């Protein structure tokens, strides 16, 4: 849940790539963890704060989102991924972990497929790369959007009021880049993408049904699927501790994260 403390450890920076001036927020030390946000734009959550305790977290605002100028030049999700990879390079980061949320999950998959040797581990939070036919991004009033994004919007307190101008330019960009519900070109690459991958779905996701998770597992050779109980689409907002624990554990141990390290001794 967002509160006044969320994101205070993060500092703002900008990096040039492909002619864009790209904003990012950064916190923490250690192996870089690059985050690509969802269609609603970059918004820090308590999940980011928790990840920042273990990683150097760099949350990008992708070109065309938020306060950045309208992006009319990026033509495809693959092109957006290439731009973001260039931005990472220009931060002088070679190898990194990658986290993609929803729309950003699809960008992250493209990026991992384009730069296999650079991505150490991939975490997809409620990814929108595989969708039931006809799926539309959340739209409507803030309340209607909240009901799609969150399992329990009533627990979150007042949500930020979106700027209509930002919404309009973002919607056009997302519509152009999101691609087909089943993207054959991307799926062909996923079949031999051996990057250790963790796919997370909230059990109450009202944007992308959690049943979509199984397709990643079927397609990708090194994929783990984890359901986050009682979370909606915005997992890191609604269950930040659960989100950060499994993300950190997976990025640290990859497939060995299935071996429990939880002690059960009660009284020695």
């Amino acid at each position, binding site marked *: 849940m967002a509160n006044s403390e969320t994101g205070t450890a993060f500092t703002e920076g900008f990096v040039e790539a492909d002619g864009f001036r790209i904003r990012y927020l950064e916190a923490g030390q250690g192996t870089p963890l690059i985050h690509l946000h969802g269609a609603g734009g970059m918004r820090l959550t308590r999940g980011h704060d928790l990840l920042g305790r273990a990683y150097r977290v760099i949350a990008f605002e992708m070109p065309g989102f938020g306060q950045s100028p309208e992006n009319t030049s990026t033509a495809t999700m693959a092109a957006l991924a290439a731009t973001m990879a260039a931005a990472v390079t220009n931060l002088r980061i070679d190898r990194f972990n990658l986290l993609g949320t929803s729309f950003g999950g699809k960008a992250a998959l493209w990026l991992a497929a384009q730069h296999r040797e650079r991505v150490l581990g991939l975490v997809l939070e409620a990814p929108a790369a595989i969708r039931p036919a006809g799926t539309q991004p959340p739209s409507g009033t803030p309340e209607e959007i909240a009901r799609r994004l969150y399992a329990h919007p009533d627990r979150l307190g007042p949500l930020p009021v979106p700027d209509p101008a930002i919404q309009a330019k973002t919607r056009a960009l997302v519509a152009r880049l999101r691609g087909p519900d089943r993207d054959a070109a991307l799926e062909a690459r996923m079949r031999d993408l051996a990057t250790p991958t963790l796919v*997370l779905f909230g*059990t109450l996701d009202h944007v992308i049904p959690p049943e979509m*998770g*199984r397709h990643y*597992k*079927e397609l990708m050779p090194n994929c*783990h*699927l*984890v*359901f*986050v*109980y*009682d979370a909606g689409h915005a997992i890191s907002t609604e*269950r930040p501790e*659960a*989100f950060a*624990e*499994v993300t950190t554990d997976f990025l640290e141990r990859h497939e060995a*994260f*299935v*071996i*429990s390290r*939880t002690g059960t001794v009660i009284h020695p």
Partner: protein
Amino acid sequence: MKISYFETGRYVPPPDLPREWPVPPAAYDPATGAEAFRLMAERVRFVEQLGFDWISVSEHHYSPRILTPSPVVSAAWLAARVPTIKIALLGPIVPTSNPIRIAEELAMLDTLAPGRIVVGLLRGTTNEYLSYDLNPSEARERTDEGMELILKAWNEPQPFGWQGRYFHYRTVSIWPRPQQPPPPTYVLGTSAEAGAFAARNHCGLGVSYGTFESMGQSTAYYRQQCAQYGWAPGPDDIIYRANMILGETDDAAEDALNRRDKQAPFPVRAGLRDALLQADTTRNIAGEKRPANVGGVLPISFCGGPDRVVEQIRRCRDTIGAGVLDLSLQDPGAGDTDAMMAGLELFGRKVLPRIRDI
């Protein structure tokens, strides 16, 4: 109307048995226990021949009142010995159990006896939490999460992990799977939470022991929730478990009711009962607060000769909407099994043929 017989593994207690829960294991007689389980199968064969549709088994601990700590073991035993009747597990107590183990064992049963298993998932009355040290204040949430996990384990075709509040698994991938679709599944309880969960997951609802009116409140709430999720439950989606005293005549049944032991069998002591009531304050019927049940005397919902009982069943159907009645014809824990067998036989002969079209 479908009829189920609630089989409790009747351990016939000697008169000098300690009457307080937990009953010391030293007082257990192995020969009496073995006889209880042998007769359990015999009774189930008997009600199958009488034309009952289901039998049900349950989970209770640490006393001879209901001698079945594992409904899965009861069901496996009965499925192997009785050829056709459906066996309803009403049910495993979810918050005190490993949900994956429940999912696996029920899937195994569903494979051993395809088409015969019915599942009820239960929060359990508050006294049950004394058995495996469950904090009563966590029972509701553990139940909801456990039920969701059981359904996911049955339905998810790929291995998955579970990042819960109360349960945590990195790998779930059960073999055998249940039949597809999985067995008919009911959420057992009268609360708003139980009704909402059942509606959201397209499960049935099982209510028990309350008055027709209060159980009707609960099932009305459930139907309302189902409508919000775009479906309408039928009569088979609602179970009502209740006690019945059936006599040849109304007077005979009333006499039996008056002779009934007014003490709860094997209760917890009074101080502990009061502490349990204070520890569990979330119980409700369709959102309306009510005290917790901590193992007291259960009411008799049906009492009379065959004619009166048929009318009561008709009123029950109209008020609760239940299409499945799960009946005890004598209090669990009472030793007079002859009277119970006579009641079952009378029910099969004089009541069952007249309620099929209700």
